[in-house]
């Protein structure tokens, strides 16, 4: 039985290879050492990914980090400058887009303006020379799937933004795609509609069990919808890949920690096998990355909701002292900003667990050992 290599990223962001003997994990999409340059512009740099079948994957990253380019490489609309793309172990790097059978929803939707809704949806069937009645039947089914029944004879210009979105999805699903690719399809919708569509898209994906890749720069969207998140950074590389929770709890580096949610990023130095000194205070750490020798410069990432604030000055490990510089009460949560000798620490708590401090008070921030994630600076 062939051995499957699955690349995972450890905390230091280095790829680490684990070996599985699972036949099922063979199927999926593999990107090997993918580079893409446009002249001197590096759009995508050294990407290695294995995306298992049936998953909902999000490519997440700031603008210009190469998400669209990576998606286009997968779709076959762009040729990689280096590297290979494999689908179920078959090399598809040089197979043109129209032979890949990957459904794609474009950022601009790219609906055909000269065709009706029904004709747009069944364009792929017309290309495959399916008969007219069969096409109309299939158009009805697909429009039912995306809840647009009855609009089959409308023109594209007569649709609302949300309806166009659905038509684009139905059109891409008409080919029964091996992969369903979406490039920020929801970014043009207003917040309420976007949330509805997110939910619907997720349910649709689960119903059809189609491997889906969604490109987004909205971390909330990525975290709430996906099985796997691929975080890309401004250096056009993949920084981390993992489940949303894993990425949130264990960011691979300072970029991920900062980009996903908010995080207290505290500069410090390694002072022992399980100790880091931050701003004169000693932090005990439950899990240290490998190869940390004393005096290594590190960054400690702690999520605001993990930080407890106690009134007054309390001595002990994992405690930083400072004054409350600001209290922000947004109703559903309370944020307390502490100034600990120049270090800014934010703590977030529920209104119930609100610590009894006010602006200007002396207070102690407790950073639990298990919540401190140490990252190389």
């Amino acid at each position: 039985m062939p051995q499957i290599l699955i690349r995972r990223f450890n905390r230091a962001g280095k790829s680490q290879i684990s070996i599985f003997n699972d036949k099922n994990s063979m199927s999926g999409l593999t990107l090997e050492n993918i580079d893409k340059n446009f002249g001197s512009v590096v759009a995508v740099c050294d990407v290695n990914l294995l995306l298992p079948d049936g998953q909902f994957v999000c490519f997440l990253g700031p603008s210009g980090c190469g998400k669209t380019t990576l998606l286009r490489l997968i779709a076959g609309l762009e040729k990689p400058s280096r590297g290979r793309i494999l689908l179920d172990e078959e090399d598809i790097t040089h197979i043109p887009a129209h032979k890949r059978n990957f459904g794609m929803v474009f950022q601009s939707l790219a609906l055909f303006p000269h065709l009706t809704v029904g004709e747009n949806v069944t364009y792929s069937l017309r290309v495959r020379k399916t008969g007219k009645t069969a096409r109309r039947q299939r158009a009805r089914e697909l429009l039912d799937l995306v809840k647009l029944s009855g609009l089959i004879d409308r023109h594209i210009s007569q649709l609302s933004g949300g309806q166009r979105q659905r038509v684009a999805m139905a059109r891409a699903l008409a080919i029964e795609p091996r992969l369903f690719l979406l490039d920020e399809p929801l970014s043009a919708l207003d917040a309420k509609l976007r949330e509805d569509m997110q939910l619907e898209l997720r349910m649709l994906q689960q119903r059809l069990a189609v491997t889906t890749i969604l490109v987004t720069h909205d971390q909330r969207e990525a975290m709430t919808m996906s099985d796997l998140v691929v975080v890309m950074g401004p250096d056009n590389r993949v920084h981390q890949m993992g489940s949303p929770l894993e990425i949130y709890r264990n960011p691979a580096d300072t970029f991920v920690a900062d980009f996903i949610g908010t995080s207290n990023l505290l500069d410090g130095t390694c002072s022992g096998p399980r100790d880091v000194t931050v701003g004169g205070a000693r932090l005990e750490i439950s899990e240290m990355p490998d190869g940390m020798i004393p005096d290594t410069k590190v960054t400690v990432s702690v999520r605001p909701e993990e930080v407890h604030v106690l009134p007054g000055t309390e001595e002990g490990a994992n405690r930083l002292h400072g004054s409350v510089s600001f209290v922000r009460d947004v109703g559903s949560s309370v944020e307390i900003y502490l100034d600990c000798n120049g270090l800014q620490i934010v703590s977030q708590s529920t209104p119930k667990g609100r610590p009894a401090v006010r602006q200007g008070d002396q207070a102690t921030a407790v950073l639990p050992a298990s919540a401190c994630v140490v990252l190389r600076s």
Partner: protein
Amino acid sequence: MIGEKPKGLRAHLTLTYPALMLGIFFIVPFGLMAAVSFFHRQPGGFYIPGFELTNYKNLYTALFGRTLVFSLFVAGLSAAVCVSIGFPFTYFITRMKRRAQVVWLVLLMSVLSLSEVIVGFAWSLLLSRTAGLSNLFVWLGLMERAVAWYPGFMALLFGICYLAFPYTVLVLYPPLSRLDPALPEAAQTLGASPIRTFFTVVVGSLRNAIVAAFVMVFVFTLGAYLLPQILGRPRHWTLSVLITDAAIYQTNMPLSAAMAIFFMFVSLVLVALTMMIGKRKRIKTV
């Protein structure tokens, strides 16, 4: 109400200038011509004002009918040739890098700076037997012996298309460069080969632009006057030649005016029909 009035007045004022120009340079000459077409011809002289349909009755000749049909045929054929070559050509230009696009467009526009006379005589030379391109082909071993490609119908068609081609590209360039590049890409992800994509999506979504370009070249070529005489045989002469002939050599102004008016009427009907077909197709697609 009161507040709106000056606005309307000012809006009208800005329109007076174009209206004036249109009146002086288009409507008045056209009106004169329309009037003359009903005047009475004085043999040996000019014409005297009157109202008679004789001139229109005199149009009913085999020569006029044949020439009219031929003119429309040449215009339609050159429009078809120009658009069917110009459309893919412009599409490829718009897919190029910005710099290359500019080079191509400048090159095409430079053709426009040549006068019709120069183009006509240049092609008559290049297509001739004695000094033409066929000599070059003979020299290259591609042909047995030099031949005359001129005068003749193909030479005429070639010359007209050469002149009309840059205009075709100019008319097609804006809509093609505005075409969302994701449209053909979407078609490809849906399984359409590049050629199929071109015909179903690029041509399909730009049908209006294609009809507009066709009508433009058609109208542009209808007035061809010099090229038929330079590159064609007498039987390839168009209606413009016939009209000029009647007006100047036969000093029959009323007849030539009637010819022109009738010609224009037929052309307008054809253009309207073409546009209607273009529109209907867009609505009736299932």
